[in-house]
């Protein structure tokens, strides 16, 4: 009886699980992403963590948890209408954001809003992207789903354990019955004896070997991968300041991304474009900016000039020029320093020391010349990757692969850059297929299928994006 009920329960849980997955089939993070891009991204920060024209959207469901869910949906569709009803939460936000109401989107269905919220939460909690197959179709409870999966495994393990226990009891009982029938004494095996018999030991050994091999293989796969790699750079350049706070477009500096395989680290003169005017850093003052000046021989004094004969100068001469300027600059720009003091001189001396250390190394003894950054994203030599393909043709956002760089003070490798990661994306990403004559002319069958509704889109995989020689040649 107990068995029956157990089987029934486990069956039930399997059915429930599949039901729970299929229930949310129409709500997808991808469609949420598309909606966000077309409707929300102009006013809301896409990292979901910082306020922009509109508030940061991360955690919006929790903030509205005091009210019925329908209020939030109504708020998203038409905020002005909700405000006019005198809804307290609605008016609170309205006042906070200088009484400017959000554009109304009456066309959004409940599923759309749910997808949107799921996407917002996914990005906020960091679950989305990286995309995993299971994520598609998950609702806002992406973390809960993970818990559910683990729970099922534990349950199954428990059920199996129970089966094993029951079976061993059954075998024991049968042996006992058999022994009794034959009239020989039955000696029950102790647990120790059971666990140390040949088959159990060899099974455990086998299990260990398999486990060891599995661990070795999965660790070996990770050799050479550097997800999270965030090396110190010669200049403490902050993307959070430049791209986040000042909203400089990524491609202003990384101008190769749209037209070359390399995104390109900008030439130093790109820095000087702005820093001929902005001469004192908001965080580090003179310390970091002087590095770019000293590497090019640019003296930002007054209207700024390149120092004549900079290459031939001795280190002492360079030091004199730059420390002199740093002193003036600090007094001019920093309220803390009003006149030349011992402290200030010492600080500048120390800062100059750092400049020299950062710009020189074993192979490079002069200050002038290119800045040797430490490369963060490294692909093996046998991998061909082209930024232009992904940025210009594919229309990907930089953040899709590089994460929220605009929030990073020190750049860290966001994605694993593993082949599996590339492949998964190629499997799932739809090609921008209809507005490009290249595809229009060469893939007539797919277009016909799309027109007839037989296919809802073409993924990178469909046009050969998983083939070896797309990336290895």
């Amino acid at each position: 009886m107990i068995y029956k009920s157990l089987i029934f329960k486990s069956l039930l849980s399997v059915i429930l699980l599949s039901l729970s997955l299929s229930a949310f089939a129409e709500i997808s993070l991808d469609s949420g992403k598309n909606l966000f891009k077309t409707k929300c991204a102009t006013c809301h920060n896409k990292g979901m963590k910082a306020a922009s024209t509109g508030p940061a959207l991360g955690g919006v469901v929790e903030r509205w948890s005091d009210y019925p869910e329908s209020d939030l949906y109504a708020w998203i569709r038409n905020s002005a209408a909700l405000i006019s009803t005198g809804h307290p939460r609605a008016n609170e936000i309205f006042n906070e954001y200088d009484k400017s109401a959000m554009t109304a989107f009456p066309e959004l269905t409940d599923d759309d809003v749910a997808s949107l919220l799921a996407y917002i939460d996914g990005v906020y909690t960091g679950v989305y992207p990286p995309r995993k197959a299971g994520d598609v179709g998950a609702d806002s409870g992406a973390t809960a789903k993970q818990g559910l999966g683990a729970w099922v495994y534990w349950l199954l393990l428990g059920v199996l354990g129970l089966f094993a226990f029951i079976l061993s009891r059954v075998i024991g009982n049968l042996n006992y019955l058999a022994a009794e029938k034959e009239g020989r004494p039955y000696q029950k095996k102790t647990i120790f004896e059971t666990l140390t018999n040949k088959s159990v030991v060899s099974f455990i050994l086998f299990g260990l070997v398999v486990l060891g091999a599995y661990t070795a293989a999965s660790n070996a796969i990770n050799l050479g991968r550097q997800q999270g790699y965030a090396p110190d750079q010669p200049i403490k350049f902050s993307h959070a300041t430049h791209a986040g706070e000042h909203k400089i477009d990524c491609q202003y500096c990384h101008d190769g991304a749209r037209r070359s395989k390399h995104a390109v680290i900008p030439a130093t003169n790109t820095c000087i474009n702005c820093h001929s005017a902005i001469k004192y850093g908001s965080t580090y003052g003179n310390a970091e900016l002087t590095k770019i000046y000293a590497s090019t021989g640019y003296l930002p004094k007054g209207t700024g000039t390149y120092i004549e004969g900079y290459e031939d100068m001795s280190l002492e001469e360079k030091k004199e020029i730059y420390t002199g300027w740093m002193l003036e600059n600090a007094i001019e720009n920093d309220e803390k320093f009003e006149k030349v003091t011992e402290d200030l001189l010492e600080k500048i001396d120390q800062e100059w020391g750092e400049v020299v250390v950062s710009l020189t190394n074993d192979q490079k003894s002069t200050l002038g010349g290119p800045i040797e950054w430490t490369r963060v994203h490294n692909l093996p030599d046998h991998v061909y990757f082209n930024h232009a393909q992904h940025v210009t043709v594919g229309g990907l956002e930089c953040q899709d692969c590089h994460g929220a760089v605009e929030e990073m003070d020190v750049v860290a490798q966001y994605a694993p850059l593993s082949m599996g990661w590339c492949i998964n994306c190629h499997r799932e990403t739809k090609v921008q297929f209809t507005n490009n004559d290249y595809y229009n002319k060469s893939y007539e069958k797919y277009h016909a299928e799309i027109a007839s509704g037989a296919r809802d889109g073409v993924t990178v995989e469909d046009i050969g994006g998983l083939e070896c020689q797309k990336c290895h040649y």
Partner: protein
Amino acid sequence: MKNSQNGIWIGGKDLNHDPEFIQEAQKEMHDPSLLNTLGDESIATEVESSRRDFLKYLGFGLGAATVAAGCEIPVKRAIPYVVKPDEIVPGVATYYASTYVKGGEYCPVLVKTREGRPIKIEGNALSPITSGGTSARAQASVLDLYDVNRIQSPQIANEDGFDTASWDDINKAVSSSMNSNARVRIVSNTILSPSFKKLIGEFTAKYPNTKLVQYDPVSASALLDANQKTFGQRVVPDYRFDKADYIVSFNADFLGTWISPIEYNRDYISKRKITSAKGASMSRHVQVESHMSMTGSNADNRILVKPSEQSSAVAFLYNEVTGGNVGTAGLTDKAKKALRRVATQLHANRGHSIILCGNNNLGEQLLVNAINNHLGNYGNTINFGHASMQRQGSDADMASLVAEMNAGRVDVLIVNDANPVYDYFNGAAFAAGMAKVKNKVGLCYRHSETSALCNLIAPIHHGLESWGDAEAKRGQISIIQPTIHPLFDTKQAEEVILGWSGSSLMSAEQPYFEYLKSSWSASSTGFASADSYVDGILHDGVLNLASSESAVSFGGFNPTEAASSLIKPNLGEGVEISFQEPVSIGNGVHANNPWLQEMPDPVTRTTWGNYLAVPVEFDGVKKFIGYMGLKDGSLVQLTIGDKTVTVPVVQQFGQMPGTVSLSLGYGVQNGGFASKGIGENVNDCLTVVNDSPQYFAVVNNIKNIGKKEKEFSCVQYHNTMGVTAENKAGETINADEETLAPGYGNIFSGFQGALVERSIIRRSNLDHLEESVDHLVHEREHFEHLNQQTLYPFDKYTEEKYAEGHHWGMHVDLTSCTGCSACTVACMAENNVPVVGKKKVSIHQEMSWLRIDRYYFGDVENPNTVYQPLMCQHCDNAPCENVCPVNATNHSSEGLNQMTYNRCIGTRYCANNCPYKVRRFNWSDYTTADIFPANQVKVNGEKIPYGADNLTRMVLNPDVTVRSRGVIEKCSFCVQRIQEGKLSAKTEGRRLVDSDVRTACQTACPTGAITFGDINNKKAEVSKKFSSPLSYEVLEEVNVRSSVRYSMKVTNKDENFDA
């Protein structure tokens, strides 16, 4: 003796069913003893590996792997520009128009640079001379830029070598030795630059006793002198092969090496392309020679004439055509008969024929001019308006220079990038003369036999670092612009001379560029400003000025005078030897270029060395044997005059009995690692008549010393396919399927059983072309029928798989392929194909992705030739793919047979299973892609292994993976170019067109024999060619569904020539 259906054979071993060769073919893959492939041979043969060794290596391997895995990932630097030049986007190639010039060799090019370094040469399609074609030498020139043997700074001679010096030292030393009375001689190969000539004029104005002496490594002085005599112009006329219906060439290798091969290839083939079988026409080409030259191999008819009887042959034709009466001694009856027939056919082609003579003999050249004049060719097929300047050397000037030097009447000798001590026929006298000159200044790129005798060495730029201009043909100017910052402390020769002539421009940043601009400004009329003129010409690279077509009048011709300087035939028994410039390395000029050294000679298929080509004779019973019983690789002692050299032999069909031939240009002793000890120098064996070298000699003795060359580096019998043999029952079978045939022959006869009738070459003669095409169409239908007898009908499969997107295909026109090998070198440059060296070639380990197979057909004593460029055929039903245990080679949806190096574990099953033998295995770490230095090989005794040298590695294409040891590689259809082309179409949002994707071999080809494109696009050029009835697939009957099609080789042979 035709033993296959098509009457095609590759060499004597094939015709003879040589058992060793058959066995080799059966093995499918050359399998030298393992020890032979490892390290130094002398050590290797002593080693015997045992089980213990195996365990040792295993242990070491495991340990090494652990160490390698345990290492931390190295920190990589990313170094941006300080100020980024506008035209450079890192990762995107920038092209500059420039010109490849080496002496008289000329090719307008586009230089592909990546991040400021040139990596590949493409042809400049705007040039009216080459129309975008290139040569193997032009392709290989980029490798010279990164030559480790370059002289990197000025040098001054001391007692036993050279000391490094500064430019100031050199300039001081030169100026101290020069005064207005100094007798200065500048010796140079042909100078094509009008500006440089102007500059030398200014130099001469300052030092009035200066004289420029030009000579060519292979002299064409007689041709120029003859035109001087007949037309008053010392030039090479403008030969228009595209207007000629009948071409007779006396020993002129105009498709291989003579004057302007790229131009001639294009024009010649434009008259021979067949687009449809009906009403096809083509020119007829008759070659009169004793050895099989590349041009001769393309000829429709060859007339075999001994080298010493060339004069008689020219005279005989002269008599026949004009009715003259010049003495003609010697000549076989066969040759006379043939020449008589030529004469009648020439009469039928008056005004649209060309007679050429490549011999350096004034009498012959004068007679040839008279024949051409008599036939009315001047003004039609031969013009002087755009006359060529590509040979300007004078034998007389050179002889008087040598005399002057030996008499001590020269104060300063300036050698401008030339090596007369090696390549002048009387190099010894030149060297002796140099000893009597006080100041010898070498403007040298690398050291040479001549530079060793100089006391001042002024190192010069590579062409890719220089400014310049070139006027290869009158009125057709092209420019040379630098594409890289000078790598070393060198200057360009022009700038050095500019400095010595005391120019005020020397203070400029680029003095010679300023000089050029001022000299160009003269021709800038019609442009808004001088600057816009310069910008325009730098952009286009070429400029065509109005043709200064001047009607030339045929001056006096005196047959007696011409006859007096003809060669007297050697009527004795002595074997005659002819010498010729090899297509690859020239007369030693390119000897230090490993790509060219490893490029097989189109005809003899030899690499790394000069091989004595000996005739093959039929023994009257069954076999073809080499002259004196010599076999491929036999070493002989060859005595000519008082010089004896030991050279290996190669059997050569089409070599006239009683003659042998040998290439010049080898045996360079002081020219860098790649040429050192490679072959023998025979420049001093030439016959000399009136100070003019004649490129033949009478051999005193050939002695078989009974030894074989240890490293016989001829690729003749490598990677052969479709070789037939006889089985025990005496039936003809396919050699590589001997084991298969008896067992399965009965069951499968007539069904997929076309084991012996392998269709590799299809050919036809113009007079039965329609018949042959019908036959081909019929046969292809039959193959298709056989191929359909399968459970897996291929059409259904392809319809689904390849209908969408692209399906790449290539078409090669065998009639258009002249064998020039520009494609093979272009492929090496584009795809980082390694050079392996002589030893590795000798054990079948050459790596070239694209080989040109050479087959003979027709008369065994005087055969015709067909060249077949063979690369991976990208079979849609590929046999290599389904034998790979790790799926490292598989098929893409675009019809590419993909090779994934990082997946390959080196089982070589795929290479075994490839019917075309186009897969190459990396036996060593040729380009230092892995971590064990012991796996690297030395090509020819260089200090740092060739591929490991950082300077040499600058030539690598960054878009193509450098392969490591132990993986298979092969032609990828230039997949990097396909991806690049697709991307540019996508970014521009338009359909992909033919010009988006052009493979390296396609762009290199001077005759347009190779077409590449998307066969799903019905408008693509390749689709049209695929549907031509002349097209066929190689080995179509084995149902591999290759993506490469060839079109039939068509000749225009007069079958009744000897009758």
